């Protein structure tokens, strides 16, 4: 449906008469990739849906000032990542008010209760292992392993050096492997 390049979409967006149409095209082109990126971090579908909406609303507000140095996809990915991390921080802060909650086990429990999880036992165990990782390592592992992104692309999105990303991925793989052995 959408065969436009990022720069064509951006040019369309800058035309006041075609602005809404251009944004519809951007949504159609990137909605699934953005959704899955957020979903792998937040697990829960409803939480993901909220963050996807925030991401695209922010994109709508910010696209006017977007200079196009990075592609629209890289820029959307960056917004989605920041929104997801903000969501996780807020969730952790809220849970710190409840003394009986166990933050370490909260995400795997979410996985067990998720009606939209269709994986086998091995996939479930892998996801549980990923959820035990700190947010940044989880992010890097998902982007490298599942999304098969290059370190250069991840570096551009996260604003982190390639060396640091490699170290994060290396630590993540070691921790996941150890968890799967237990």
């Amino acid at each position, binding site marked *: 449906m959408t065969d436009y390049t990022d720069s064509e979409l951006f040019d369309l967006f800058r035309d006041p008469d075609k602005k*809404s149409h251009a944004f519809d095209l951007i949504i159609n082109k990137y*909605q699934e990739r953005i959704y899955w990126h957020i979903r792998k971090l937040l697990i829960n579908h409803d939480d993901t849906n909220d963050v996807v909406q925030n991401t695209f609303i922010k994109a709508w507000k910010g696209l006017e000032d977007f200079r196009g140095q990075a592609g629209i996809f890289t820029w959307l990915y960056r917004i989605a990542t920041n929104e997801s991390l903000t969501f996780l921080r807020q969730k952790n802060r809220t849970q710190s008010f409840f003394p009986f909650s166990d933050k370490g086990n909260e995400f795997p429990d979410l996985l067990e209760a998720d009606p939209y999880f269709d994986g086998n036992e091995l996939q479930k165990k892998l996801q549980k292992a990923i959820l035990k990782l700190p947010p940044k390592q989880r992010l890097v592992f998902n982007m490298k392993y599942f999304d098969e992104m290059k370190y250069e692309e991840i570096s551009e999105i996260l604003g982190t050096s390639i060396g640091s990303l490699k170290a994060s991925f290396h630590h993540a793989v070691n921790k996941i492997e150890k968890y*799967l052995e237990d």
Partner: protein
Amino acid sequence: MSYIVNMKETDYIPEKISSAGKKSPFTVPDGYFERLPKDLAGMVNSTITDHPEKKSVRIFWPLLAVAAGLIIAVVFSFYRDELLPGIFGNNQPSVESTCISQLSTFNIDEEDLIIALGTDSVQPIESEIIAEYIVLDNNDLENMIVEL
């Protein structure tokens, strides 16, 4: 050295992990991605129409804050003695009034008081000063003269 070797090996994925595959085990509700563009377009439109209301609220709040500040200032000026008696209150009697009230409780003779104060500390008043006081400050001088 071992750090550099590890950096080169970072793309290596152990079999325990790779055997789980790369396919996402998550699913979405039926028709979710068909509905999402419409939902997002609706939300974007609502943010556009919400804008003017937000602006009016932004203008309204500073005015409300100024009005509240004025009301507080007026109320405070009326009731400041009651609200902050230690700072503004006149509940504490002045030193002069305390002395007068204390003197009134004792029956002190004026002559005894002058003697007690000592003659050195009492300066005699020149007759010219007394005359000047009578002429300048006493408006009823003519009546006084007539009466005399």
